[in-house]
């Protein structure tokens, strides 16, 4: 089932509609700067830029409540920022600084802030869905109305455990949204060439849960699909699977030389399906935004990211004496 891109603005509060755009612009600005910094060696281990995938993250985060949670993948800055983590907290973490969101213990692939409902990006493909599934079980056991979203990529759709997690959520009717953010590639592998049956949504539907394909370059479509899935989850109807079709403009990680797709292909996505340009145009057409308003959003994002860079540069390093602390409450006290 496909939710197509409906061009007219749906019934969304105008302030919220503008905020979605602001959030997407902030993500793009952050990721472009982050990518540059990674190439300059400022980010140990580099990063996986999510440029092009902004609508997926913002649509997911805004389709959920603040108390709902998201657990994701190695490509995760867009999820973290959409969930409300500040660019300063993220960038300082990428630098490995003490003022980073996780004190330099996490890094790009392990960003978490439980107060914001960000239950970790994850360095292991498919593992974020497991944490989200377990969190959904915890929510159900405690009788709360919290919903969890677990995100993985098209590459993750060929990880067996992803389907173990989906099956358990389906049979237990857990308040979970199973999200495949399909950007067509897994590192250098074209996912369609390694995916039996080709159709990931149909594969998911085999587990007996509602499964939909969504235009991931349209924040409104993603938001709507996620809101509906969250309603189902909250009212006890169990999990929903969403395949969000999107595209990454950059390589798999910063600096990757791209030999597995054509520049033409990238240009086609950029020029016809860009989630920010198209959505901004839509807001302007609907009279919800003007060019000056758009320029202001871009400026604000740039200033915020500039400040984040300064913050990360100036932030202190963590104390090496603490490196082995807080491994387990059971250990560390014994006499050695």
């Amino acid at each position: 089932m496909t939710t197509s891109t409906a061009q007219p603005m749906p019934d969304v509060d105008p302030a919220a509609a503008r905020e979605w755009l602001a959030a997407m612009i902030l993500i793009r600005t952050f990721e472009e700067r982050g990518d540059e910094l990674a190439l300059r060696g400022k980010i140990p281990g580099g990063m996986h830029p999510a440029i092009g995938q902004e609508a997926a993250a913002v649509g997911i985060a805004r389709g959920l409540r603040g108390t709902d949670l998201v657990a994701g993948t190695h490509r995760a800055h867009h999820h973290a920022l959409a969930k409300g983590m500040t660019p300063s907290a993220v960038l300082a973490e990428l630098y490995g600084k003490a003022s980073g969101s996780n004190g330099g213990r996490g890094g790009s692939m392990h960003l978490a802030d439980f107060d914001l409902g960000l239950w970790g990006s994850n360095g292991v493909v498919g593992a974020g869905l497991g944490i989200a599934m377990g969190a959904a079980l915890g929510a159900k056991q405690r009788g709360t109305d919290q919903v969890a979203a677990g995100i993985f990529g098209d590459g993750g759709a060929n990880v067996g455990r992803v389907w173990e997690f989906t099956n358990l959520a389906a049979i237990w009717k857990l308040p979970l949204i199973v999200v495949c953010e399909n950007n067509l590639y897994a590192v250098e592998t074209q996912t369609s060439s390694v995916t039996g049956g080709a159709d990931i949504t149909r594969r998911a539907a085999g587990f007996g849960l509602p499964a939909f394909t969504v235009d991931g370059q349209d924040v409104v479509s993603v938001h709507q699909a996620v809101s509906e899935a969250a309603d189902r989850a909250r009212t006890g109807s169990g999990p929903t699977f969403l395949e969000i079709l999107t595209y990454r403009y950059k390589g798999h990680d910063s600096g990757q030389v791209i030999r597995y797709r054509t520049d033409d292909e990238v240009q086609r996505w950029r020029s016809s399906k860009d989630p920010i340009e198209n959505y901004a145009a839509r807001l302007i057409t609907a009279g919800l935004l003007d060019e000056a308003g758009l320029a202001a959003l871009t400026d604000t994002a740039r200033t915020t990211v500039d400040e984040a860079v300064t913050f990360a540069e100036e932030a202190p390093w963590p104390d090496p004496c603490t490196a082995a602390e807080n491994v387990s409450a059971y250990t560390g006290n014994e006499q050695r």
Partner: protein
Amino acid sequence: MSNDETYSTAYRSGMREEMERDGTIFVLGTDLFDRGGHFSQVKGLGPEFGADRIRDTPISEAAMVAAGVGAAMNGTRPVVDLNFMDFAYGAMDELINQAAKIRYMWGRPVPLVVRATAGVAQGGAQHNNSLQSTFMSTPGLSVVFPSRPWDVKGLLKSALRGEDPVVFMMHKMLTGARGPAGGPDELVPIGSARIARPGRDVTLISYGYGVTIAEKAAQSVAAQGIDTEVIDLRSLSPLDLNTIVTSVRKTGKVIVLDEAPISAGPAAEITAQINDHAFWYLDQPVGRVCGADSPIPHSPALVDALLPSEAGVVAALQQIAAATGPALAS
């Protein structure tokens, strides 16, 4: 205190008491609700607590442990029961790469218990792995391996009141072993060893079913005037070095008895720790009586050839007790 529990019923009564005390505790795994697990470890708790708290799962070990990890992070206390510890191989990422690292990376406690029956007995190569070696070398996981009903119950209570993941290993050979067990609030702290038998001449360190062998061997050499101190580690991580070192300082002679394959297993770590912390108190090199570096075969005749035996431990005790000065190569 109850006087007559088995290793398995002690687990069940500990679980029942804790589930009554704390409504957030629940158990998940295969064949639990009706059957009570493959070792009857939760028999009867299904009907008593309902299907939401004794949850039957499909055979999806990764999903079971992932469910436990996420639920533990979200305000509940799950116990994942894998029945056999060998099946943890299907959930290694969840255990080692997720559960064990979440407190460290994110400051979030993961009060998860993963229980399974372990140790070497029957069943051949794939049901008799010594996963304690792997788990005790994983920072962030605690590993307990009790030898008697009292410690099963007391350690389970500590694990269910703690904040971090605990791998709870129960030896196959001890399933029906009888003994007393503590009352509702008698806890055995994780990371505490016990002196199973005090002695002056040799320290004999073991855990799990090894303690049974150790006690028999100690009894048998006592008649020859060798006074053996038996330490039951109870926890492999954290190790109770204090109890070990105190004993070694007294006896100066140590045998470590461990059925795990000898290379890079618990006995190797214990020996290294003794060298680090009590070397100058040793009269003889630390001796090891361990499992061979081999998979476990089917035939009992072959299994016995690979495992520590009472006779082997007796010989090691006699030899180290008699030894004086360096054993010079001839």
